[in-house]
C-alpha cells in the first residue's frame, strides 16, 4: 500500500509532507530529532507523554537522586567506625522535593519541548501510529516522511501475570519516583537493577523492605558473584530477600497489600512492581508496514534500519534498554538518515551498564556463561576488592571484586564485571578494553595508580595469567 492509498483510507485529509517523523521522544528519539533538524531537515517529533522520556522523569535521574541521598546516609553512618559520631535523621521530603523541583519540574516537559522547537523540530503531542510506509498518523493528522520514519517508542513497566495483582493499586517506577511520604513497609516484586536499587534506597531511609525475586538469584542477568554480593549487602542492611519466590496471589484490603508466597503471607503498606518492561510495539501501527504487532523487539541492521524508510532505536531494538545505547544508536541513525555512507555502524560488543546499588555493579560485554555459550575458549580472572590496599584503607563499605572474561585465543577481554564503592567509574577502563580490543598483555603492562580501586583490575588480569 502506498502512502497515498493510506491517506485515502484515513479519510483523505491532506497529509503534511516532511523529511522525517520521529515517533517517541525519549533520550534517543529526542537527540535524533534535534540532530536531523540542525542539519536542515524538516522533522516532526511525536510524543504522547513527556519529551525526554522515561530516563529524566521516571528512570535514571530521579532514581539516582534517591541513590545519592541514600549513599550520603550510609556514609554518614560509617562515621562511627571511622571518624567520630554521627546522628542522622533521614527525611524523604528533601529527596521528593529535589526530584520534583530540580529534576522534573513537577513532571513538566516545557523546557524539553522548547529545546526541541529551538532546534527546529515540529513537535506534536499525541499517540502516533504508522499508517503505511513513511506515514504516521497522530490524532487525525497525517505526516508523510520523504526520508522515513524513526520508531523510538520505548517501553512501559510490565506486570507479571499474578492472580489479583492487576486489581491492586501497586506502584511501578513511575509512581515510586513521585512518592512524597515513605510507607512504613514496602514489598518489591522483581530483583533486577531497578528493584535492587530502590530496595536499598528505601531500606536506608528506614522502610521495612521485602524483595521478591522469581529467579534463583537477584540481578539474574549479572555475574552470579555480583548477585551474591548485592543480596548479601542489602540483607545485612535489613532488606528481606526472597529468591525463587512463587507469588500465588496479591490482594489489597483497602489498607495494605497481602502477598501469598508459597506458605508465607507477606503484608506491606505498599507494593512496587519492577518485574521487567514491555516494548511499546503493540499499538503503533506496525501491521501497516507489514510487521507483526506482537513483536517484543524490532530487528534492525547495523545502521538502525528496519525496512526501507523505517528506522528504530532505543529499548525497542532489544540491544540493551539503557539511555547510553539509545544515544549511541541515535548518532548512527542520524548518519544513516542523512545518507552518510561512511557513517558509524552499530557494534554492541561493549555495551556497559551500571546497577547503582552500593556496592555499584558495573558490567560490560559478555558474562562468563554467555562467553562460554559462544564456544570461544574462555579464561576467567577474578580479584577481591576489599582486601586490596585501597579496599582495606576504605574499610567499611569496601566490598567488591573485578571479574574479567577473556577470549583465551585472541587474548582480549570479552566482558568484565566490577563491583565496589565506585565500580561504575572503573567500568570505563574495562569498557575501553572490550571496545578497543586492547590486548590483555597491554593492560597488564600498564602502571596502575596506588592506592586506587583500579588496582584490583590489575590483580584480576594477573589472575588470568596464573590459570
Amino acid at each position, binding site marked *: 500500500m502506498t502512502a497515498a492509498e493510506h491517506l485515502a483510507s484515513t479519510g483523505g485529509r491532506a497529509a503534511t509532507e516532511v523529511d522525517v517523523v520521529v515517533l517517541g521522544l525519549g533520550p534517543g528519539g529526542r537527540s535524533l530529532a534535534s540532530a536531523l533538524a540542525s542539519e536542515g531537515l524538516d522533522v516532526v517529533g511525536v510524543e504522547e507523554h513527556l519529551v525526554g522520556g522515561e530516563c529524566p522523569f521516571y528512570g535514571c535521574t530521579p532514581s539516582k537522586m534517591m541513590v545519592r541521598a541514600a549513599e550520603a546516609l550510609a556514609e554518614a553512618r560509617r562515621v562511627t567506625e571511622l571518624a567520630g559520631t554521627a546522628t542522622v535523621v533521614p527525611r524523604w521530603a528533601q529527596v521528593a522535593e529535589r526530584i520534583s523541583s530540580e529534576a522534573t519540574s513537577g513532571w513538566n516537559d516545557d523546557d524539553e519541548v522548547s529545546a526541541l522547537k529551538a532546534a527546529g523540530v515540529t513537535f506534536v503531542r499525541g499517540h502516533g501510529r504508522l499508517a503505511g510506509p513513511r506515514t504516521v498518523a497522530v490524532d487525525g493528522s497525517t505526516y508523510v516522511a520523504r526520508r522515513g520514519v524513526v520508531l523510538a517508542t520505548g517501553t512501559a513497566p510490565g506486570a507479571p501475570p499474578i492472580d489479583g495483582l492487576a486489581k491492586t493499586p501497586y506502584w511501578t517506577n513511575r509512581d515510586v519516583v513521585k512518592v512524597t511520604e515513605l510507607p512504613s513497609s514496602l514489598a518489591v516484586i522483581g530483583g533486577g537493577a531497578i528493584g535492587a536499587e530502590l530496595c536499598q534506597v528505601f531500606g536506608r531511609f528506614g522502610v521495612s523492605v521485602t524483595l521478591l525475586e522469581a529467579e534463583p538469584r537477584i540481578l539474574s542477568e549479572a555475574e552470579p558473584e555480583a548477585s551474591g554480593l548485592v543480596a548479601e549487602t542489602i540483607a545485612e542492611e535489613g532488606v528481606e530477600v526472597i529468591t525463587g519466590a512463587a507469588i500465588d496471589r496479591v490482594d489489597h484490603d483497602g489498607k495494605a497489600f497481602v502477598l501469598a508466597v508459597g506458605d508465607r503471607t507477606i503484608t506491606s503498606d505498599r507494593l512496587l512492581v519492577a518485574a521487567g518492561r514491555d516494548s511499546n510495539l503493540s499499538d503503533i501501527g506496525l501491521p501497516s508496514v507489514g510487521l507483526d504487532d506482537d513483536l517484543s523487539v524490532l530487528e534492525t541492521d547495523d545502521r538502525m534500519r528496519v525496512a526501507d524508510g523505517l528506522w528504530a532505536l532505543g529499548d525497542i531494538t532489544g540491544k540493551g534498554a539503557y539511555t547510553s545505547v539509545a544515544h549511541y544508536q541515535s548518532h548512527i541513525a542520524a548518519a544513516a538518515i542523512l545518507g552518510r555512507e561512511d557513517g558509524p555502524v552499530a557494534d554492541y560488543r561493549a555495551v556497559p551498564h551500571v546497577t547503582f546499588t552500593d556496592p555499584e555493579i558495573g558490567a*560490560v560485554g559478555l558474562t562468563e556463561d554467555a562467553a562460554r555459550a559462544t564456544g570461544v575458549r574462555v579464561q576467567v580472572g577474578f580479584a577481591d576488592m576489599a582486601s586490596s590496599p585501597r579496599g582495606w584503607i576504605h574499610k567499611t563499605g569496601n566490598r567488591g571484586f573485578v571479574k574479567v572474561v577473556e577470549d583465551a585465543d585472541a587474548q582480549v577481554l570479552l566482558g568484565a564485571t566490577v563491583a565496589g564503592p565506585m565500580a561504575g567509574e572503573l567500568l570505563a577502563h574495562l569498557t575501553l578494553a572490550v571496545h578497543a580490543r586492547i590486548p590483555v598483555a597491554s593492560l597488564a*603492562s600498564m602502571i596502575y*595508580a596506588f592506592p586506587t580501586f*583500579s588496582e584490583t583490575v590489575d590483580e584480576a588480569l594477573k589472575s588470568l595469567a596464573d590459570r
Partner: protein
Amino acid sequence: MSTQVDVVVLGLGPGGEYVATELAKAGLVVAAIDKHLAGGECPYYGCIPTKMMVRAAAVLAEGHRIPDLAGTSTIAADWAPVARRISDEATTDWNDEAAVDRLVDSGVTFVRGHGRLAGPGAVEVAGETFQASRAVVLNTGTEPVEPSIPGLHETPYWTNRDAVQLKELPASLIVIGGGAIGAELAQAFRRFGVSVTVLEGGERILALEEPEASAIVAETFDGAGIKVVTKANATHVRYADEQFTVTLDGQSLSAERLLVATGRRPNLADIGLDTVGLDPEAKALDVDDRLAAGPGLWALGDITGKGGFTHVSMYQAAIVVSSILGDNAVAAADYRAVPRVTFTDPEVGSVGITEAQARERGISVRVGSTGAGPSTRAWIHGAGGAELVKLVEDADRGVLVGATAVGPYGGEVLSALTVAVHGEVPTARLASMIYAYPTFHRAIEAAVKDLAT
C-alpha cells in the same frame, strides 16, 4: 670482614622490599639493608596512613552533605579512631617486625643500619661489608626537604612523618606547601575541625597539575574555609608560647602547629656513590630502560626521578628483578603513562603530560575538556560533585599523551585514561565507545567530542 652474597638491596621501601623478596625466592643469596623501617615511607608515613585520614575525613564530609540531600545530621568528629587505626591497623605502632619476618622467611638476610657503597659490588653497613657477585640495588628513597626559611630549623615543625603520628589535633595549623601531600592533609585536618592555612610559594596549589584542576581544588578549599595564600614568600618562622608565627611579605600568620610539605629530596648524598664513580650531589640517578645505573648496579624508586610514587617503584622493581635474573621477561621501562592521584575531594587523577608540557615539547596539541557545565551525574550527585576531564592529544598521531580527571572518583576515572595513553588508543576509538549512563566518566566522552571542535 666481608660476606659474599649474590645481591645487596639498599633501602627497603616498597620496590626494594619486592626486589629482595623475589630474588631470594628465585634462589639468590640476598642481603637487604634499611636504616629505618622495612616497607619504607608508604606504609608508615605516606600513602597508607594519609589515605586512612582521607577516608575518615570523607565520611565526615558526606555526613555534612546530608542537609543538602537527605535529612539532618549531627556530626562530632573525633580524631582518636583515626589515630588508633593508623597506629594499630596500618603501622603496628611504627614497628616493622612483620615486614622483617616476611623478608627473612623469604630467605633474605636483613641488616638494620645505614649502608654505603664501598666500591663496585660492595656495600658497608654496621662495620660489615657485603660483596655482591651479581648486583647492588639502590632504593634509598627520599626524605622531606626543609625549605631555607630563616628561623624554621629552630622550630618544632612537623613533616608528614609527624602528622601521621598525631594523637590529638591542634586547633590551628599552617601548611607550607600546596602540593599533593600538603593539599590532602590540609583538607583532612580541616574536615576534623582544624583551622587550616595553606601557604604555597607558586602561583597555584597542585602546581604540577593542569591549572583547571588546581582551580577546582582551590575553590573547594575556599568553600570549606581553608585559607590558601599563593605566591606566599615566607621570610621568617618563629615558635614561641606554643604558637608558630610565619612572617610573609606584609603579614604574619600564627597557628598552633606548622606542617612543612614543600617537597622531598633523594637520599643520595651519603650512600657512597663516589666510590662507584657517580655524583653524590645528583638530584636523581641516571638509569637505563632496565634500571641499570652502572655495571652491576641498579636503582629504582624515587631516586630515579621517574615519579615519586609507590606504583612507579613497584613497576620498576618488576623490571629490576627480571633484569637481574636475566630473563628479561618483563618489558623495558616506559614512563609515557605514569598515573598519579591526589586524594583530595574531589580527587585529581592525571596521567602522562599536561597541556603545557606537550606544547613545550613541540607536539601538535589539541585539547578537549568538559568545560564549565556539570555532567548529568555530577548534577545528580549535588554536594561534592565538582568534576572535570581534560585531554591532551597529539593531533598528528590522533592519540592522547596526557589526561586529567577531577571528581569524587577522579582517581578511578583515571584508569580508563591511563589505558588510552598507555595503549595509544586512537581518539577516534574513544569517540565510538558507549559510555554508561549516568556515570561521572561520561565526562571523557564530552571531552573527546570537544577535541574535535
